[in-house]
């Protein structure tokens, strides 16, 4: 096998060779306390997560449902920021050199830091890619070039409303994997339609060989398994953020995340 320079690419190659589906897990950096975030990330991996999406808190998270909005608000109370996310990744890397970490967030903190500074910092910290929710293909080209030049991946969203022409345009820019948003709505919504997921994954597959992961509306092992049947993995966020929010302290959050992720892992592997 050729050498793959990016952990995301390596991880999906490995999963494919093993015939397994990816479990992508999302938590908000600083939610539950900045001092606990790295521990929670290790717990996600120990319980069976293959990739981590670390949410960068933003004051105006337009695409999030109430659960993840509250996660952002809690994280901001703990003074989390994009800069601190870089430090968290760096700390995570001292013990885990192989699990891919993607920063998922909104454009403005990156604009403030400066796109080039952001790309440099992400590379230096040991991050592997970025997903910027409000940076659709037409606005993403400059950041995309900067990430590409550093062998970092740029994850794009595709949705039930994305036209074929746009799928072609977006998959041209996309790298790492493609994140298919399973429904029209915000994160954590409850109206998952498996027929539509199937149909759309088949439609996207005509345009790209990148791994396809499905997110939004995935609540447990059964839904994770169902959405990843035609794709390469499932992304889970709201149930994890909700668990962190309901936990009294870092240790309790760790236990709850562990239990949820383990259940999903076994469902995906069954």
């Amino acid at each position, binding site marked *: 096998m050729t050498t793959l320079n990016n952990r995301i690419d390596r991880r999906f190659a490995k999963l494919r060779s093993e015939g397994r589906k990816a479990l992508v897990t999302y938590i908000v950096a600083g939610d539950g306390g900045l001092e606990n975030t790295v521990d929670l990330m290790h717990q996600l991996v120990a319980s069976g997560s293959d990739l981590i999406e670390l949410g960068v808190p933003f004051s*105006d998270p337009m695409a999030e449902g109430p659960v993840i909005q509250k996660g952002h608000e809690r994280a*901001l109370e703990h003074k989390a920021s994009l800069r601190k996310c870089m430090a968290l990744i760096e700390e995570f890397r001292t013990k885990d050199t192989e699990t891919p970490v993607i920063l998922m967030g909104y454009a*403005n903190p990156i604009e403030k830091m400066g796109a080039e500074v952001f790309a440099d910092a992400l590379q230096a910290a040991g991050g592997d890619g970025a997903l910027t929710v*409000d940076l659709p293909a037409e606005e993403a080209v400059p950041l995309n070039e900067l990430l590409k030049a550093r062998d970092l991946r740029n994850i*794009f*969203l595709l949705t039930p*409303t994305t036209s074929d022409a746009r799928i072609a345009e977006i998959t041209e820019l996309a790298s790492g994997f493609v994140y298919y948003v399973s429904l*029209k709505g*915000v994160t954590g919504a409850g109206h998952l339609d498996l027929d539509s997921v199937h149909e759309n994954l088949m439609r996207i597959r005509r345009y790209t060989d990148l791994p396809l992961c499905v997110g939004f509306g995935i609540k447990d092992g059964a839904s994770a398994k169902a959405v990843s049947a035609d794709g390469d993995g499932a992304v889970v966020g709201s149930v994890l953020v909700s668990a962190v929010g309901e936990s009294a302290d870092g240790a309790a959050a760790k236990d709850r995340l562990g239990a949820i992720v383990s259940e999903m892992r076994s469902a995906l592997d069954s």
Partner: protein
Amino acid sequence: MSKPSSPVDFGAYPDARGHFGEFGGRFVSETLISALDELQEMYERLKNDPEFQSAFDYDLAHYVGRPSPLYLAERLTEAAGGARIWLKREDLNHTGAHKVNNTVGQALLAKHSGKSRVIAETGAGQHGVATATVAARLGLKCAVYMGAEDVKRQSPNVYRMKLLGAEVIPVESGSKTLKDAMNEAMRDWVTNVDDTFYIIGTVAGPHPYPQLVRDFNSIIGREARRQSLEQFGQLPDALVACVGGGSNAIGLFHPFLADESVKMYGVEAGGDGVETGRHAAPLNDGVPGVLHGNRTYLMEDDDGQIIETHSVSAGLDYPGVGPEHAWLRDIGRVEYVAANDDEALAAFRQLTRTEGILPALESSHAVAYALKLAATMGADQNIVVNLSGRGDKDIFTVAAIDGIEV
């Protein structure tokens, strides 16, 4: 008359992708792109369609009550001691503000789209009322998102919306004001995009909203230009309008942009004073960033988090501004200044007492700056001030400041 040619072709903006220079654009989640494409396509088709235009003109004349007068405020002029001050009386429109120009236009688009439900965000409640009004007229379901703080501050408008049949949804997230109402309206739209038309109330948001809201409000400037020539035989020397998101200002300014002799002043909310940091004046004291679907000047902290704004006027209490204003600022075509809370309140009282016109606190910011500006100009010069709304909704706020219970 103005010089024949201008180096900037203002009519060519935004470009095909919604950019005004580096500002504007479409910074939204992928789910909304197809809805925005659909809206843009429909708008491109209808804006030059004579039937659509005549329906819009008919509604403006017979429902809104246009043209609004251009009124020479003689006693205010005398008090200022300089240029003549003319008021463009948008406060006399149906529902009491310029906002209805836009909602009438977007309601026609909603009708063409075949969608059965409209949603809106509102700060002071004027846009919410204007949306609920057109929804009632067309028999469309209507939901208005309003920050929980603003629901408390603007109870008369909340009740007006309810009387009109709209559902008013208080928004409890974030700072519980206009910006959060806009986030929530976007979330609703993403979820209900098949049957819902989002009527944005200002010249912000993703393309094509800044363009179409501007176009619908440009009736203000087209009338003012014609009325100026008719009533004082020349173009105004200066235009003054308040700027929150900036829809009344762009509506007045846009038809004059190529007239180089016409100076323009956008007046932001200075709150406690721009130097205190407690204000809502991103063009005076902000930096470019991305919020609510467009790149523009924003009020934010060192980490790029949007910060709370302060203004006595709920309608100007917004941390961003329309992208066209950001561009007009940077190319130097419009000068953006600020009026503080106390200056706006003084202007509110002065206009009420000298002319018998009770202005909205938003518009009072424009009046406050116009008074200062007029004093520096000659008696043969003319200033047109956009009196964007009436102040009845604000009497409770002013009474509270006076320590009076109404």
